[in-house]
Structures are given as structure tokens and as C-alpha cells.
């Protein structure tokens, strides 16, 4: 019985939130929706953790949907890399839902709560599905499930600010273009190989050589995913989307959606196309690496001058994605390791920061930076969480941000790319500038006369501090994350010779 349950875990990971979503939509009134969603996310996290423990030794789980063996049928394939991402997505979902209850009650109209949590579950289903599937077309389907529900989640911020609607609409247009490009690219690859299973695609492309169709396929898929992960200069949908979304959604999406897109990019780049594709190496070296560095500097500069805390955090996300892309573009074991570890590190730090912004929104009614003067006096715990998570964003030692920057600088130095290493270190100064700017405002400015704001409720403080605590804990003891990242990088490097068990 237990063995049968373990065998079915990969599909349960997806099916549980998928089934919970319509139940919440139909019967989720009066707070039941939150309870079902939260319980489901906890179970999903338990499933992901079990899968992670199973594949930690480097083994691969392959699940055949409907009993149809790949490459004909759809395959769910769990290895160390996507198990790591599954843990991130399901864990962040659970903690964000814990936070969402009080935050969403204030920011979304009561009659929409059931739909909100149903959509949240669908978004989670989509993100988990993108991560777990071993079938490239299935990846597209899940990518669209997560994106479509993501647009709806962002538009739920319309009660607070109607601009959430245009933000969601812009994201919809850009995201749909991205998805279309992805499918066009996939169609070209299907034309060449006649298969959609990633491992099968990889095997067939290895001996294929080079052709213009293949290059076009690669370019379309790459641009499609780059739109989804907000790679500079395709990032324009992101600042407004994260600024106007409900705080819990900003926190959830910033920690998961772009991370899952980075994961999809890693899969396509290294599992499907393989490490030895010269065209891919050129694209990464000549286009992605410079763009990523420009992204870090431009986005950080914009963040420094942002007038709104959430907008500042959104621009900072674009800069942080730049670090992940540098790690990919270095095309080495250390670089990939830095990217994978930064997936986790940025997820926990940015989730904590957006949660702080949500707490300010709840108590002060705004996230406009000038209006947050002296708020640390009234909300000491929330403000302390901001400083600690902000330090992690900067990359101060003993925080997770330091670990990922350390690996990134090391990876650049081993290839004698010292200008890249230098720029990465220099960019931390910019990060420090915008984090300091907020710290100064909330701690050292006088609060406006006669304004008192109470501390955030415990149901919001606890999730914020869980993320802050994680970003400190894994900064001091990075054993688990760096081991997982290192093995994931190994798996990606040797991905071309993966076959079904």
C-alpha cells in the first residue's frame, strides 16, 4: 500500500491542487476556501519533500501517465533539479497561503475570496506541472495554466488600485506572446525530430548536427521563455504586475513564477539541446551574458529611484534574475550551481521582502516610500525582517545572498572573466543603496505627527519570519542547498545521456 502510494507521488503532486481548485471554487465561501487551499498546499509540500528525499542520491523517478510509456505518452520525470524546484514552489505556496489569509481579507473583496484561492491553487498546479513534466508540450500546457491564473491573481489587486487591471492585461499580452513563441519553437523541433518528450528530443538532437530550422526552434523557445522570466529587455510587464498585485500574490509570484521559468530555461538549454551545442553557447556568451549584466545595473538604478516599495522590489527582482542568467551563461558546473542555489536564495529573500511590503500595506494603507517614514517605531518586527532579508539581497556574509554571489564570483574567476566578477561585486553596492534607502526611511526619519500604526498580525509576521529565518539559516549552513545545487548542476551537465528506466 505504502509502496503504491510512493509510486503515485509524482502525479499526486499535480492532481491534489488540481482537484482542490474546483472544490474551492464551488464550495469555498466563508473562509472554507482558505482552509482547503492551505491544507492542500501543506500536503503538496509533504509530497515534494518526499520526492526530494527519494531523488537526493541522484536517482530519477519516471511516471507514465495513463500507463502509456514515453515517448508516446506523457512522462513525469523527477530528478534532483526539479525536485528541488518542487520543494521551493510548494513550500513557498504553503507559507504564502498562511500569510494570505489576513492580507487577502484586506485587499480582495469578500465575494471573490473563493475564486481567489481556487485561482491560487490552479497557479500552483501549473507551476508544479511545469517543473515535474518530462514532456515539452505538456510543459507548455502547464506554463499556460500557471500564467493564465497568474494574470487573474494580479488583477485581483483591482480593489486597492484599478491599475492592477491594466498591469494584468499587459502581462497577459506579453505572456501570451511568450507562450506563442514557445509553441512555434516547439513545433519546429517537432518537425525535425517527430517527438515531444524531452529526453527523446535530446537523444535525437544529439546526432542531428546543425540546421537553420534547429536554430530557429532554439531562438523561438529561448525568446518565449525569456519573456516569461522577465529577462532584460523583455521585462516590461513585471514592475507593474508585481506592484499592483495583492501583496500575497506579489510574494508568491516573485518567489515562484520567474524561478520556474528559469528552471524551464535550464531544462531546454541543457537537457534538450545539450551542453555541446555551439550555437547555444554563442547565444549565451554573446547575447545573454551582456544583457544580464546590463539588467543588473539598469534595474538596480531604477530600483534606487523608485517611489514605491513594491515597485522597488519588482525592479530588484529583474536585477536578481540577471544574476541567475549570468550563472547560466558561464556554461560551467560552478555557474549552474550558482544559478540553482540562487533560485532558492532569491525566492526566500524576495518572498520575505514582499511580505513586509504587504504588512506595511495592511497597517499603513500604502507602500509609497515617503509615507513609510518612521514606521519601524510602530512595526519593529516587520521592519527588522525587512533589514535582514534586505541584507540577504545585498549579499552580506551569513545570509543566503552571500552564498550565491560567492559561487557566482568564483565561477566567473575560474574562467578568468574577472570583469564579470568585478561587476557582480560592484552591483551589490547598488543593491545596498536601495536597501539602505528604505532602512533609513523607516528607521531614522521622524514618523508623521499623530500617525500610529500597529504591528502586523501574527498570521503575517510568522510567515515573514519563516522566510527571513530561512534566508539566515541557509546562509550559515548552506550544506543542503549547495549539495542539491551541485548535484543538480551535475545532472544538467550530463543530461544528454539520460534515458528512461
Amino acid at each position, binding site marked *: 500500500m505504502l509502496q503504491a502510494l510512493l509510486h503515485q507521488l509524482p502525479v499526486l503532486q499535480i*492532481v491534489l491542487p488540481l482537484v482542490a481548485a474546483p472544490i474551492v471554487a*464551488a464550495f469555498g465561501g466563508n473562509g472554507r476556501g482558505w482552509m482547503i487551499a492551505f491544507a492542500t498546499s501543506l500536503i503538496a509540500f509533504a509530497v515534494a519533500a518526499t520526492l526530494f528525499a527519494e531523488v537526493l542520491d541522484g536517482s530519477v523517478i519516471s511516471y507514465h*501517465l495513463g*500507463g502509456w510509456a514515453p515517448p508516446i505518452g506523457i512522462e513525469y520525470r523527477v530528478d534532483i533539479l526539479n525536485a528541488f524546484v518542487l520543494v521551493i514552489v510548494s513550500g513557498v505556496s504553503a507559507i504564502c497561503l498562511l500569510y494570505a489569509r489576513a492580507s487577502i481579507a484586506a485587499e480582495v473583496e469578500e465575494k471573490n475570496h473563493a475564486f481567489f484561492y481556487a485561482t491560487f491553487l490552479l497557479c500552483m498546479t501549473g507551476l508544479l506541472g511545469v517543473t515535474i513534466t518530462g514532456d515539452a508540450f505538456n510543459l507548455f500546457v502547464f506554463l499556460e495554466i500557471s500564467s493564465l491564473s497568474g494574470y487573474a491573481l494580479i488583477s485581483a489587486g483591482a480593489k486597492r488600485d*484599478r491599475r492592477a487591471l491594466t498591469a494584468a492585461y499587459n502581462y497577459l499580452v506579453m505572456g501570451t506572446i511568450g507562450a506563442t513563441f514557445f509553441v512555434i519553437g516547439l513545433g519546429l523541433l517537432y518537425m525535425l525530430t517527430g517527438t515531444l518528450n524531452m529526453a527523446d528530443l535530446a537523444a535525437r538532437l544529439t546526432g542531428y548536427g546543425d540546421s537553420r530550422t534547429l536554430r530557429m526552434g532554439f531562438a523561438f523557445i529561448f525568446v518565449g521563455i525569456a519573456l516569461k522570466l522577465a529577462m532584460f529587455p523583455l521585462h516590461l510587464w513585471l514592475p507593474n504586475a508585481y506592484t499592483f498585485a495583492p501583496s500575497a500574490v506579489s510574494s508568491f509570484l516573485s518567489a515562484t513564477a520567474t524561478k520556474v521559468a528559469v528552471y524551464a530555461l535550464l531544462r531546454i538549454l541543457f537537457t534538450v539541446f545539450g551542453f555541446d551545442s555551439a550555437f547555444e553557447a554563442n547565444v549565451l556568451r554573446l547575447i545573454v551574458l551582456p544583457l544580464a549584466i546590463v539588467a543588473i545595473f539598469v534595474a538596480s538604478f531604477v530600483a534606487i529611484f523608485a517611489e514605491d516599495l513594491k515597485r522597488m522590489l519588482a525592479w530588484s527582482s529583474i536585477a536578481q534574475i540577471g544574476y541567475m542568467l549570468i550563472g547560466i551563461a558561464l556554461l560551467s558546473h560552478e555557474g549552474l550551481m550558482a544559478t540553482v542555489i540562487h533560485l532558492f536564495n532569491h525566492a526566500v529573500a524576495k518572498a520575505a521582502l514582499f511580505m513586509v511590503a504587504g504588512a506595511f500595506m495592511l497597517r499603513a494603507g500604502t507602500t509609497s516610500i515617503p509615507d513609510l517614514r518612521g514606521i519601524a517605531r510602530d512595526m519593529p518586527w516587520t521592519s527588522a525582517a525587512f533589514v535582514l532579508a534586505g541584507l540577504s539581497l545585498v549579499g552580506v556574509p551569513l545570509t543566503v545572498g552571500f552564498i550565491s554571489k560567492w559561487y557566482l564570483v568564483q565561477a566567473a574567476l575560474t574562467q578568468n572573466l574577472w570583469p564579470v566578477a568585478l561587476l557582480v561585486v560592484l552591483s551589490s553596492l547598488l543593491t545596498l543603496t536601495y536597501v539602505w534607502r528604505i532602512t533609513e526611511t523607516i528607521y531614522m526619519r521622524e514618523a508623521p505627527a499623530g500617525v500610529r500604526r500597529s504591528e502586523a498580525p501574527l498570521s503575517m509576521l510568522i510567515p515573514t519570519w519563516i522566510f527571513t529565518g530561512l534566508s539566515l539559516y541557509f546562509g550559515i549552513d548552506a550544506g543542503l542547498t549547495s549539495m542539491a545545487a551541485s548535484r543538480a548542476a551535475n545532472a544538467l551537465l550530463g543530461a544528454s545521456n539520460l534515458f528512461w528506466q
Partner: protein
Amino acid sequence: MQHHLILRVVARLLLPPIFLYALYVQWHGDYGPGGGFQAGVIFAVGFILYALINGVDALTRVVPPRALILLLAAGLLLYAGTGIATLLLGQDFLDYSALSHDAVHGQEWGILIVELGVGITVAAAMTAIFLAFAGRSASVEDKDW
């Protein structure tokens, strides 16, 4: 639309064949082109035509919005429930062979049930989307921007 006698009469004549055709596409999906998605869209077209001729209020009297939401959920649950049933019968998710004494019948029943779920959800979703647009009450005012 009360004064458009021709439209009303023709619509009334068309509605039964539209629903019948939707059901044909639904159940004939095994043997020919068709299936749940197409059938669901055609079925919703019947409702939408009804609302176009008789007004949105008349449609919400026939299918209340609450019923639409329940149908939306029911279709998806029927689909996923089939998968869970196959899990409980000891097979992989959506392996219909477990549904009957022999694999061929199991596969046939499985796909029929699943497509019915798709049809219900698509029909309800299409009608709900139409209602969301046609039943809009307040427009966005200038000061909201």
C-alpha cells in the same frame, strides 16, 4: 428584441437542433471528429443565442450563475475523478484499462466519461465568459484611472 419576430421564431427553431448537434458531437467523438471541447462550445452557443434573443436576464433564469460555477467545477472533478478512480483501482493515473473487466472496454468508457467532463466544463465556461461580458453592470469611471 421583442419586435424582431423573424429572429425570435428562427432562434426558437434553431435551438433544439443546436443542442442535438452538440450531443451528437459529444458522443460521436469516438468514431469521428468531435469530442468534449467542440461539443461544449456548440452547447454554449445554444445558450448564447438564447441570451442574444431574449436578453441576459432570461438566460440567468434558465441557468443561474451559481449553477454555472457548480457545473464548471463538476466537469473538472469528473475528469480528475476518473483519474483518481483508476488510481484507487491500482493503475496509473488515467489508465482507463482498470475501469472495466477488459482493457478495451475500459479505455472506451474512460474516454467517454472524461470527454463528458470536458464538455460540461467547456459549455459552462463559455456561457460564464459570455455572461461576464454581457452582464457587466458598472463601467470603469474616469477617476478610477
